[in-house]
Structure formats: structure tokens, C-alpha cells
């Protein structure tokens, strides 16, 4: 049986140190030119590793509201509501654990936090990544200030059935290299482009979100 699971990284809006350099305006694109046959430019979700921005604060807020509602009505149907309450806490706990990257840091997802989710197809019994390249998804992003959109997940395909595991078998390395080797997935973007940016003086606001894929 095949299942998949995801983990998330919770990231806050952080203070940004601005390092400006006028010479950068002429900087050349680094990296490898994307081949026309590559799926990396294809933003249709269709593979083993789905990468998508997600509003974790929204999930946390809704879980909190559910808990509040259930707490206020618990005296009416205690058994049913207690079970729902536990499930919602369990779901929130999974997100929090995911945000803490493996239950180590205990960082809770709270309002005003944003993040992204990496979902990986794994074997149901062993937990190792699978070359099951049929995942798809999208994120309904709703920010508290004027932005709302449905963003499709970005898909990366696992290229071989083999994996690279740690000696004790508790970790798996995913290499976004695009080569037919163990643990390898299709390549990920290094240079991003957006066109047709409207002027902020035309009553149109534009929000840019960039996420790094990586971690150990």
C-alpha cells in the first residue's frame, strides 16, 4: 500500500537586512539552463515531491476556533465533542511537529506565521521515499491583508526506485539533482522570474514569496 506524508517548516516574517549593490543589476544568471524537456518548468503538479506554499497560520487559527466552539458546547454532547476535540488537537499537533522538523524543537504554528509544506510519497510500511510520481495539490492562500489566491503545488519527480538512507535508517536524503541515481529527484529552480508586475501606484499590490528547498 502506498501513502504519502509531508513535513513543513514554519517560518516567520523576519527582519530583512538589506544589502544593496547597484552592480547587481547587471548580474548574470547562475545555474544550469533548464532543458526544454525538463519537468522543472512545468508547474502542473504531477510527481513524487509536491512543494507548495501553505498558510499554516490559517490552519492553526481554525483549529483554535474549533477548539473554542467545542469547549463552549461540551456540556451538551461530551463524548462526541471530546473525540472531535482530540482529533483537532492531534491534527494541529501534527502540523506543529512538522513545523519543528521532526518533533525536536517543539515550535508551534501560531497566527501570523507562514510557511510551506514539502510532501513526499513514501512506502506505507517502511516510510522510505517511493518513486510514486502521481501526487498533485494546491494551496488556498488567504492572508489577513488583501491577498488571496490558489497556488498550485510544484512537482518534482523521483527518478529511481533506490534511496539513500542514514546508517540507522532513520533519515533519507533527497537529491534534487536530475540524475538517474539513488535518491535523486528532478532539479529545482535556482533563478526565478516573474513578469507583468503592475505598478504599486495603480492601486494594485504585489506580494513576492520565495522559499528555499533544503534542510538537514
Amino acid at each position, binding site marked *: 500500500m502506498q501513502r504519502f506524508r509531508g513535513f513543513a517548516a514554519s517560518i516567520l516574517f523576519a527582519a530583512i537586512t538589506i544589502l544593496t*549593490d547597484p552592480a547587481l543589476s547587471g548580474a548574470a544568471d547562475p545555474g544550469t539552463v533548464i532543458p526544454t524537456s525538463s519537468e522543472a518548468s512545468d508547474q502542473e503538479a504531477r510527481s513524487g515531491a509536491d512543494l507548495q*506554499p501553505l498558510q499554516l497560520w490559517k490552519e492553526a487559527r481554525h483549529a483554535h476556533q474549533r477548539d473554542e466552539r467545542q469547549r463552549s458546547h461540551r456540556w451538551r454532547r461530551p463524548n462526541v465533542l471530546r473525540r472531535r476535540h482530540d482529533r483537532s488537537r492531534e491534527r494541529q499537533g501534527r502540523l506543529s511537529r512538522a513545523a519543528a522538523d521532526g518533533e525536536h524543537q517543539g515550535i508551534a504554528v501560531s497566527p501570523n506565521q507562514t510557511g510551506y509544506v514539502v510532501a513526499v510519497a513514501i512506502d506505507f510500511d517502511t516510510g522510505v521515499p517511493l518513486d510514486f510520481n502521481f501526487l498533485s495539490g494546491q494551496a488556498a492562500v488567504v492572508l489577513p491583508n488583501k491577498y488571496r489566491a490558489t497556488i498550485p503545488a510544484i512537482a518534482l519527480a523521483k527518478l529511481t526506485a533506490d534511496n539513500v538512507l542514514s546508517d540507522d535508517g532513520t533519515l533519507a536524503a533527497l537529491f534534487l539533482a536530475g540524475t538517474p541515481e539513488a535518491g535523486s529527484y528532478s532539479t529545482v529552480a535556482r533563478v526565478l*522570474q516573474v513578469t507583468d*508586475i503592475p*505598478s*504599486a501606484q495603480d492601486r494594485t499590490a504585489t506580494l513576492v*514569496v520565495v522559499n528555499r*528547498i533544503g534542510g538537514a
Partner: protein
Amino acid sequence: MRPTKTAALLGNFKGSLFSDLGASAAIGTALGTPQFVAELNDGFPAVPNFSSMVPAGHTGSMKLFSPSDIVGVFGAVLYGQSGKPGKKIKDRKVRRPDGGVNMRTLTTTQSASIVIPVRPAICN
């Protein structure tokens, strides 16, 4: 391999902003987070600033990248309404340019990686 602790940081992040008038601006930040979220206004780390690059009635384009080859990224752009919405609900619905898109990939890196924990799936 050590246990998975945190998502990797964006670090130094650079880019270029171009206007339809032919001008270009440099973008540069040092980010201590894995995620960069910024509104395109004069607070955006571009020199010259955004409003002078893309004045009213014009459009622009932008490239973003990390100078490090090991940094794999993906991004999205969300559109909203910056001014005060109209009083009528009908006006707000018509004029509000909601939506968003994933950023287009210009080049890719072959050096990015990520380490995930291996655990059997927890189902119900």
C-alpha cells in the same frame, strides 16, 4: 547524516528588477529565514526603489536568485488591491485583482538536497 533540525536558510539573495521603460534595478538581501515574503513597494530591497522603477501606468519584470549553487528555490506572486476598496460591494468584486501564480523557472540547480525523517506512515 544528523537528525533533521530545520529548513535551510535563503542566505544572500539577489535579483534584478526591470521596467518596461528599459531601466533596471538591483535587488539584494541577506535572509536569515527559509522564506522571503515582501510586498513590492518602496520597502522592497531594490535600488532604485520600486515606485521609481515602475511608475503608474507601467509594468515590470523581475529575476530572483541565490549566488550559491546549492540553493534551490521556488516562489509565488500574489496580487491584491493596495488602495482603499470602493464603497459598493459590486465595485470591490469587479476591481479587485485577486489571484496569484507560481514564479517561472529560468535556470535550475543540480546541487540542492533535503533530508527527511524515515518513519512508517501514521494513518488514522
